[in-house]
């Protein structure tokens, strides 16, 4: 096994997982909501991009630019009309409603698109690679990783250097007092979910171009996203990137030893990290 190549692939795969996780991390950080339909929303976005590419004959990246505001709208509507009703001290409603949503999304997509595997074509980028020293690195995995870094950079700037970001952090601390500042928590949550869905669209592009997808692969992506967030530590976006990289590396190393062990290796790494660092690597001090 070529260690250098395997680890590099793992790091780059981590970028994809960090993209899956970034939206989840943002939403949980602000409103303590875990959306069990998150993975299925990624799949929904992938189908959206596929439809845009197929019917409008677009380059996938152009399709992404169109898909992002659409997904923002989906997130905004979802939060405003469904998820905002579930927020409160009881943990059951958001869990059960998003679980139901996951079932509805998967089966809705199955009805419309059937269980056939699809893939978003990316032309020559599919197989393009560049050489770094003695290693060959795919262009798409590199793009994925740098997109993940860019997304997290932008999110951090948003959270810490803008008025909206201040409103997000204040609302997450104390929604009632935030109201006294003129912040309307429900609208803030809707914007946050909208942003999360826009990020989901980015993740969907890289998921859909990298490998085949079908309506049922959502839950597995949710689990990877969740594992990345928890390993990184709740409340830290850079931590989410680190968590994604750990997961990616565990999977590629496990997979290099035995292809059947790839996914299992990721789960085992997750369990091990949690046993030794129950709050992840970079937990927020206040929670």
């Amino acid at each position, binding site marked *: 096994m070529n260690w250098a190549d395997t680890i590099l692939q793992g790091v780059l795969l981590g970028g994809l997982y960090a993209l899956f996780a970034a939206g989840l991390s943002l939403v949980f950080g602000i409103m303590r909501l875990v959306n069990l339909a998150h993975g299925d929303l990624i799949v929904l976005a992938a189908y959206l991009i596929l439809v845009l590419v197929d019917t409008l004959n677009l380059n996938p990246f152009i399709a992404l630019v169109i898909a992002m505001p659409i997904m923002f709208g989906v997130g905004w509507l979802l939060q405003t009309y469904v998820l905002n009703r579930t927020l409160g001290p009881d943990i059951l409603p958001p869990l059960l409603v998003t679980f139901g949503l996951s079932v509805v999304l998967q089966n809705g997509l199955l009805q419309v698109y059937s269980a056939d595997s699809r893939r978003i074509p990316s032309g020559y980028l599919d197989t393009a690679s560049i050489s770094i020293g003695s290693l060959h690195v795919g262009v798409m995995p590199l793009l994925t990783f740098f997109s993940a870094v860019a997304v997290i950079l932008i999110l951090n700037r948003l959270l810490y250097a803008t008025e909206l970001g*201040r409103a997000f952090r204040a609302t997450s601390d*104390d929604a009632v007092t935030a*109201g006294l500042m003129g912040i309307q928590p429900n609208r803030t949550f809707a914007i946050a979910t909208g942003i999360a869905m826009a990020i989901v669209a980015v993740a969907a592009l890289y998921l859909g171009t990298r490998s085949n997808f079908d309506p049922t692969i959502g839950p597995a992506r949710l689990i990877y996203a969740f594992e990345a967030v928890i390993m990184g530590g709740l409340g830290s976006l850079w931590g989410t990137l680190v968590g994604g990289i750990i997961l990616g590396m565990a999977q590629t190393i496990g997979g290099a030893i035995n292809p059947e062990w790839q996914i299992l290796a990721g789960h085992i790494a997750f369990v091990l990290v949690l046993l030794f660092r129950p709050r992840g690597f970079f937990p927020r001090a206040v929670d």
Partner: protein
Amino acid sequence: MALLETHGLTAFYRDFQALFGVDVTLDAGETLAIVGANGAGKSTLMRSISGVLINGARQILFDGRPIGALAAPQVMALGIAMVPEGRKLFPSLSVEENLLIGRYGRATKGPWSLETVYRLFPILKERRNNPGTALSGGQQQMVAIGRALMSNPRVLLCDELSLGLAPVVIRDIYAAFPAIRESGASIVVVEQDIGQAMKIADRLYCMMEGRVTLSGRPSELNRAAIHAAYFGADS
């Protein structure tokens, strides 16, 4: 016409009634004090006015407008800012960010800005980048007041400013009040400490068990009357 007035204000926490028809008036430029024991309904009154609690629309009038049924963000935008009980600073924000967030819902120009708030409470400028809650109780109270001032409110509601603070710190905080009055804000202060209330207020209301039991100018009220109104006639 009074700036802010309540008419037969009632308030409920689910089935529990906390206010039984409270009438309070605040004229422009006045400083009002509301005193009473724990559970008298003072904080409930503040929460009702600021919109944290929703009441009957015409039970609270601001500039003659019915605002009783409005929620906090809308009340705040009209110019009524609250310094909540227990300070309630945002731990995820720095001192300066806590101040800035006070302008989120109402970015009106006026005498109060970061600069003038720092002049009122110089210690905060030194600590501007510290997390909001990494300050002493008295300094946190200053941040909370500054945060409310940032929206250049017409009415400032102060709920239990002196709770948990040492007397010398309380003095320092109330020392800032003349500057606040001069800037044109009308103030309502909720206090358990009657002496302090008498010192700063133009008029005083006493509450007990959800009702107003006494009102008047400090000069007109004697200790015995206040004592009776505070604790109840028999005690």
